[in-house]
C-alpha cells in the first residue's frame, strides 16, 4: 500500500461532500436531528441562563482548537476537537450543541466538512466523541477525588473520545465501496475499503492526535479544578444520576 494512497484518508475527520453515499448521510442527518432535539431539551432542564457565556465560550474554543493543525512530519495533519473537555465541564448534551454549531459553521462558511456530511460529522465529533469521553471519565474516576485518578481519567476521556470519533469516521468511509458501487462494480463514493480506512485513521490518532486531545483535556480540567471547580459538570455529586 503506497503511502500516497492512504494520505487522502488521513485527517479527513471532517468528511467532505462526495465521500459518503446518500444512504449513509441521510440516516445520519436523521440521527443527529433527533439527538439535537434531545440535547436542547436536556440543556433547558439542566442548565440556566448563567451558563450561556460558558456555552458560547465552549463553541468558540472548539472552533479555535480545531484550527491548530498538528503536523506529522512529511505526512499529513490532524487536530484536537475539544468535545471531551466540553463534555466534562458542561455535560455531554451541552457538548453536542456546542460542537455541532462549530461543525455547521465550518461546513457552510469555510468549506471544512461537507454540507451533505453535516449529519455524519456531527455524529462522529459532536455525539460519539463527547459521550464516549464522558463515559470514559466516569468509568475511570468512579467517585474518586484522588488527583492521580482524576488526571488519568481526564487523559483517557480525551484520548478515547477522539479515537472513537476517528474510528467511526473511518468506518463510514470504509463501508462506502461495499454499499455504493456503480453497475460496473466501481465505487461511487469513498473508494477505500475498511481494511485501509480503519488503520489509516486509527494509527495516526492513537499515536498522536488523541494523545494531544488527552493532554489538553487534563490541562483544562486542572485549570477549572483550581479556579472554578463548582462549574465542572462531571464532578458534581449528582452528575452520575443525571445521565
Amino acid at each position, binding site marked *: 500500500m503506497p503511502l500516497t494512497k492512504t494520505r487522502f484518508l488521513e485527517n479527513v475527520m471532517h468528511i467532505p461532500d*462526495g465521500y459518503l453515499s446518500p444512504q449513509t448521510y441521510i440516516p445520519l442527518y436523521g440521527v443527529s436531528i433527533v439527538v439535537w432535539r434531545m440535547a436542547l431539551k436536556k440543556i433547558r432542564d439542566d442548565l440556566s441562563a448563567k451558563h450561556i457565556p460558558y456555552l458560547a465560550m465552549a463553541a468558540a474554543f472548539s472552533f479555535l482548537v480545531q484550527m*491548530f493543525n498538528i503536523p506529522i512530519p512529511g505526512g499529513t*495533519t490532524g487536530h484536537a476537537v475539544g468535545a471531551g473537555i466540553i463534555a466534562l465541564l458542561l455535560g455531554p448534551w451541552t457538548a453536542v450543541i456546542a460542537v455541532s*454549531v462549530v461543525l455547521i459553521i465550518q*461546513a457552510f*462558511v469555510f468549506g471544512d466538512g461537507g454540507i451533505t456530511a453535516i449529519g455524519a460529522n456531527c455524529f462522529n465529533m459532536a455525539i460519539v466523541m463527547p459521550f464516549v469521553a464522558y463515559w470514559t471519565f466516569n468509568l475511570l474516576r468512579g467517585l474518586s477525588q484522588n488527583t492521580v485518578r482524576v488526571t488519568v481519567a481526564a487523559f483517557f476521556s480525551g484520548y478515547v473520545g477522539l479515537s472513537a470519533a476517528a474510528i467511526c469516521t473511518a468506518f463510514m468511509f470504509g463501508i462506502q465501496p461495499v454499499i455504493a458501487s456503480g453497475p460496473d462494480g466501481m465505487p461511487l463514493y469513498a473508494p477505500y475499503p475498511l481494511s485501509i480506512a480503519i488503520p489509516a485513521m486509527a494509527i495516526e490518532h492513537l499515536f498522536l492526535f488523541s494523545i494531544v486531545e488527552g493532554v489538553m483535556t487534563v490541562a483544562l480540567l486542572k485549570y477549572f479544578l483550581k479556579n472554578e471547580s463548582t462549574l465542572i459538570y462531571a464532578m458534581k455529586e449528582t452528575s452520575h444520576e443525571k445521565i
Partner: protein
Amino acid sequence: MKRFEKKLWLGIFAMAVLSPLGIILPEKFGAEGAWGEWGTDTLEKLLGYVPGGLKKTADIWAAPIRAYSFGGEGAVLSTRIVSYIVSAFIGIVLAYIIILVISRLLFKHEK
C-alpha cells in the same frame, strides 16, 4: 462579567491570534494541509479515476471563505496567515451569535 469569565475570553482571543501556528508548523514540517488533498484531481492521480457519485457531489457547495483563506488554498503564506486570524475571529463571533440565539430561545422565561 465575572473575572474568571474575562480570563477565559482572553485565553480564547490569545488562541485566535496564535491560530496561524496551525498552518505554519505543518508547512515547516512538510506535512500536507488539511484541505485540498481531497480534490478530485488529487484522487484522479491516486486512483486513476474519480468515483462517479463523488464527482457529482464534491462541489455542491461553494463556501465563502474556502479553507480559511481569502486567497484560496494556493495563496501565499502571509495571505493565509492573515486570513486565518480573521477566520478565527469570524468563527468566534458566529459561534457566539448562534449560541446566544439558541440560548435565548431555550431560556426565554429566565433572566
